[in-house]
C-alpha cells in the first residue's frame, strides 16, 4: 500500500489545492510501479494551513499557482522515487522514459506496460540487456495506436553521463556491445529510453524496479 501525507504552510484555497494535487500525482505517485498490484488503501493527502502568510492561491489564474504546481510536482516525484527505491526485494531503480508519442497518455501507457512486465523486470535483475522483452511489452500496451514497429527505438541511458547504448534503432536491432551493456547494468540506477518515432512528440516518465528472488520470498512468507 502507498500512503502519503504532504503539508505546506503556503496559503492555498481548497479547490486550488485539489487541482494542484491532481496534476502532481499524475507525474509522481501515479507514475510508479513496484509489482503491478494496486492496493485497496492507496491514499495521498495534501494539507495547506496558510501559516506562512501572503496572498492566497485560489486557482490557476492566481499568482504563484504555476510555480506551486512545479514545486509540488517535483517534490511529489522525489517522494514517489523513494518508494520505488524501497521496493520489496529490489536491487535496481529504473527510469522508463517514453518519448515522441502521439500524446502523453500513449507515452504513459507504454511506460506503465514496460514497468509492469515481469520478464523485463527479471531481465533487469539478471543484468541482461534484453531489448526484446522491452519491445514486446511496448507492443502490447493496450489502446496505444501510435506504436509503429519500424519507427521504434530502444536504448539504455547510463546515469554516469556517458553516451546512450543503442539497442534497437527504427525497429532494427543494433550490434550491442555486451561488455558495455553489462557495465551499465552493474549500476543501481538505469534509464531505459523508448522512442516511438523520429517525429517530435509527447514524453512520459515512469519509475520502477527489478523483480528478484527476494520479492517472492517476502510475499510467500506474508500471511493475512
Amino acid at each position, binding site marked *: *500500500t*502507498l*500512503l*502519503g*501525507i*504532504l*503539508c*505546506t504552510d*503556503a496559503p*492555498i*484555497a*481548497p479547490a486550488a*489545492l485539489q487541482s494542484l*494535487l*491532481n496534476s502532481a500525482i499524475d507525474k509522481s*505517485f501515479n507514475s510508479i*510501479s*513496484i*509489482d503491478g*498490484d*494496486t*492496493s*485497496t*488503501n*492507496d*491514499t*495521498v*493527502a*495534501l*494539507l*495547506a*494551513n*496558510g*501559516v*506562512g*502568510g*501572503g*496572498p492566497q*492561491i485560489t486557482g490557476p489564474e492566481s*499568482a*504563484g499557482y504555476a*510555480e506551486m504546481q512545479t*514545486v*509540488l510536482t517535483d*517534490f*511529489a516525484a522525489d*517522494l514517489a522515487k*523513494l*518508494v520505488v*527505491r*524501497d*521496493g*520489496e526485494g529490489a536491487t535496481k531503480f529504473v527510469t522508463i522514459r517514453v518519448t515522441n508519442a502521439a500524446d502523453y497518455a500513449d507515452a504513459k501507457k507504454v511506460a506503465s506496460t514496460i514497468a509492469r512486465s515481469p520478464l523485463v523486470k527479471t531481465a533487469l535483475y539478471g543484468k541482461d540487456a534484453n531489448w526484446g522483452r522491452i519491445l514486446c511489452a511496448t507492443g502490447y500496451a493496450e489502446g496505444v495506436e501510435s506504436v509503429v514497429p519500424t519507427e521504434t527505438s530502444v536504448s539504455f541511458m547510463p546515469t554516469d553521463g556517458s553516451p546512450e547504448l543503442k539497442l534497437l534503432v527504427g525497429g532494427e536491432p543494433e550490434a550491442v556491445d555486451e561488455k558495455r551493456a553489462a557495465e551499465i547494468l552493474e549500476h543501481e540506477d538505469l534509464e531505459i529510453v523508448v522512442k516511438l518515432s523520429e517525429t517530435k512528440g509527447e514524453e512520459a516518465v515512469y519509475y520502477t524496479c527489478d523483480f528478484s528472488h*527476494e*520479492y517472492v*520470498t*517476502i510475499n510467500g*512468507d*506474508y*500471511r493475512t
Partner: protein
Amino acid sequence: VTASSQQIRHYAAPGEGTVPAAKQKYVPTTGIYPKGFLASSAHVGVKPSNTRFDDLCLIASSVPCSAAAVFTKNKFQAAPVTVSREIIKSRNGAGIRAVVVNSGCANAVTGAGGVEDAKAMGKETDRCFEEDGTESQTQDQSQTVVMSTGVIGQRLPLKKILHKIPTAYDTLGDTHAHWLRAARAICTTDTFPKLLSRPFTLPNSSTQYSLVGMTKGAGMIHPNMA
C-alpha cells in the same frame, strides 16, 4: 538454505530492524518544516507481535487547513478510504485539522464495522482538539483524515488505537525527530522511513514557505489514484 533465510524480510512492525547501509543515504538527518504543523507517533501494538515499535502516526495543524486527497481506484476500497473521501468532500476541503494513521492493519474488506472503526479514529482525534480548547465546537463531520495500512481482512484493535490517540496528541512536536518518528510509524515492510522537506518561495513574495512529505510503501505498489 542459509542464504535464503538471510534474505527473508518478514512482514515487519514499523521501525523493526535497522536501516540497511545502502539505504541510509535516503534518510534525512535534518529538515526545514512548514510552520504550524506538528507530528508525533505512539506505540499501539496493532499487530500483537509488535511489542516495541510505534505504529500510530498523528500529523496536526495548529489552525484549520485546506485539504485535498487522492484515493485508490481499486473497487474494494478500504474503510479509511471511503471515510476520508467523505470527510474532505463534505467539508469542501476546508477545516481539516489532522491526519491519523495506523500501520499493521489496513482496515480493508472489514464491512460496515470497519467504516465505524475508521470514523471512530477520526472522532477520537477531533476530541483531543476539542478538549484542549483549540476547537470551539463539535462538528458534525470529522476534521481528521484517516489512513490505515497493513494486513487486509482484519478488524482494527480499535480500543487499543483509541486509547493511544491522546498519547500521540500530547506528544506532538515540530522537531526533525518528531517528523522522522512519525514517518517511521507508518511503515510496514519498508526498510527505511521516507521523509522529505523542502523550502520554496513564490513569485511576488519574499516569504519562505516549506513542504514536508512522508510516504510509505514497498509492495502492492502500482498506484492509480484519483
